[in-house]
């Protein structure tokens, strides 16, 4: 029986691997995701029939409640709220980790008053009822730490992504709290592991509270626009927390699956950091970029003063009417304006006229890796029209009109020219090489990095101010009337 159970976990882990492998092409991704879901179901079934599980009622209640809430959330969320959704789910998962660790602690405590066997049932590596193994203590604390930090950190991230929590000013204060908390945590861990493993209720409670605070204080000083990096990192941590729980419970399914998630989070994090040309340390501890680099409104206005060539939707329509090749350059503003459908409609009209239409996707356009892809996929843009930066950059030279839709930093030439710029070194989309560049944004506000953009004052740049969706719709109307 035990062998069967373990075989079940192994099969589930293998299915997860195949599930993630499916994610390597858009064609197989849907099936891959389903495979992962099946793997999860299998793991749950195996866990339920596992030898020491006896109270099905509670488990089923928990599963039902969770499924209902989860399904509701998934149905409700808008595509544009994906970053917040992922962050929130991540936080919920962290909460689960935290509770698992706490429950495990309580049960081991109880079991140790019964028999060695009862303890071994929970923690197979135990050999002495009075002395839990070091790895158990460390894993419990690690699970609590990662779980709690993920819980509060993710919800702070949600707040920041929604713009409800602004960039912090008292960075020094948060950093001090973080340092103190870590000291206290280390002391607590040492005491827990060395002195009193099973009589530390208050200590554990204290550590939980401390870790919850820690989560808040770690994420507060990070700039709002860096939240995707934070979420991805926390996701990686929650995977590693699962692996840590696997070590404690002697469960290889948990170890393997947790490691997969951990690896995925780390890789996505490093991809984002590389694409922004910043180190992870700089993202996490460098404070908000906008707060540092941001220029005041008056400075910003002075930069653009009198150098902007304004244009309108009508003019844009005329330009497009004569164009052979048009490239759309979507950015965060497209997500804000929810202009993906309007974009698609305009693109279709142009294609019907025989115009060659492509989309240039910068690796960190938007606020999540692959953000633009998902957004445009929602509007049924075929994914082979979405071209990556390195492939599309040489094509701008032969492009008649490049339409920049709510993008800013990813098309800022300062990245390659101005060593003092906070985005210096980040590769950008070379839109300026197009014959005409049309920038659609609401005003002259800077993007995430908080710096002005020289592109907007170039000779071949026209600015159309207004909400991206509105402007596009007007352009469509104008184009129809031509």
């Amino acid at each position: 029986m035990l062998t069967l159970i373990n075989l079940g976990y192994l099969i589930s882990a293998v299915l997860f691997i195949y599930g993630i492998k499916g994610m390597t092409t858009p064609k197989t991704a849907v099936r891959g995701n389903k495979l992962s879901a099946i793997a999860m179901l299998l793991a749950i079934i195996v866990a339920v029939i596992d030898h020491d599980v006896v109270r099905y009622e509670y488990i089923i209640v928990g599963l039902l409640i969770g499924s209902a809430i989860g399904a509701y959330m998934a149905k409700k969320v808008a595509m544009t709220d994906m970053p917040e959704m992922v962050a929130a789910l991540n936080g919920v998962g962290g909460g689960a980790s935290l509770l698992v660790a706490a429950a495990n602690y309580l049960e081991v405590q109880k079991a140790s008053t019964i028999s060695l066997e009862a303890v071994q049932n929970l923690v197979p590596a135990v050999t002495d009822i009075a002395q839990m193994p070091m790895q158990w203590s460390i894993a419990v604390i690690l699970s609590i730490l990662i779980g709690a930090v993920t819980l509060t950190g993710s919800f702070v991230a949600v707040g920041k992504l929604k713009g409800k929590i602004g960039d912090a000013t008292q960075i020094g204060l948060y950093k001090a709290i973080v340092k103190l908390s870590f000291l206290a945590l280390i002391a607590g861990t040492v005491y827990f592991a060395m002195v009193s493993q099973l009589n530390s209720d208050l200590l554990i409670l204290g550590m939980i509270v401390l870790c919850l605070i820690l989560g808040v204080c770690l994420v507060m000083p990070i700039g709002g626009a860096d939240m995707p990096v934070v979420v991805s990192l926390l996701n990686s941590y929650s995977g590693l927390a699962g692996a840590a729980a696997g070590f404690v419970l002697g469960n290889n399914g948990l170890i393997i699956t947790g490691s997969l998630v951990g690896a995925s989070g780390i890789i996505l994090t490093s991809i984002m950091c590389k694409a922004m040309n910043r180190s992870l340390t700089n993202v996490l501890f460098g404070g908000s970029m906008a707060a540092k680099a941001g220029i005041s409104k008056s400075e910003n206005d002075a930069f653009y003063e009198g150098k902007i060539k304004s244009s309108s939707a009508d003019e844009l329509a005329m330009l497009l009417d004569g164009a052979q090749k048009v490239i759309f350059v979507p950015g965060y503003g497209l997500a804000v304006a929810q202009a993906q459908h309007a974009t698609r409609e305009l693109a279709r009209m142009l294609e019907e006229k025989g115009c060659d239409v492509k989309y240039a996707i910068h690796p960190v356009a938007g606020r999540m890796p692959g953000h633009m892809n998902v957004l445009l996929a929602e509007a049924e843009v075929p994914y082979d029209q979405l071209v990556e930066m390195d492939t599309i950059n040489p094509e701008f030279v032969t492009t008649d009109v490049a339409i920049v839709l709510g993008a800013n930093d990813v098309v800022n030439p300062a990245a390659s020219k101005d060593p003092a710029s906070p985005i210096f070194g980040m590769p950008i989309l070379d839109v300026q090489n197009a014959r005409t560049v049309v920038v659609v944004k609401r005003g002259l506000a800077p993007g995430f990095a908080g710096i002005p953009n020289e592109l907007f004052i170039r000779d071949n740049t026209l600015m159309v101010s207004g909400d991206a969706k509105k402007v596009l719709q007007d352009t469509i109307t104008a184009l129809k009337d031509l």
Partner: protein
Amino acid sequence: MDMFMLSLTIFVLAIFVGVEIINKVPPTLHTPLMSGTNAISGIVVVGAIISSGGGGHTTTLSTVLGVTAIALATINIVAGFMVTDRMLSMFKKK
């Protein structure tokens, strides 16, 4: 061979598998990958089930915590997979 080394071996291999596979995921799919792996991290539900369904060694508090953990993890799982599925089914080739 002691349990810890075995677990470590498995961990190391799993990290290799993870890194090799994830590195092949194209940027187009990074957002679904993020939400998909996020759903997968709900695997802690297994720990929660083992913890909360145990025999004589549960306490009321541990059961409450365990069931809450199950509910939270299930939210993460169900919402995560469904949302990922929603996103992925939008990806279409011309």
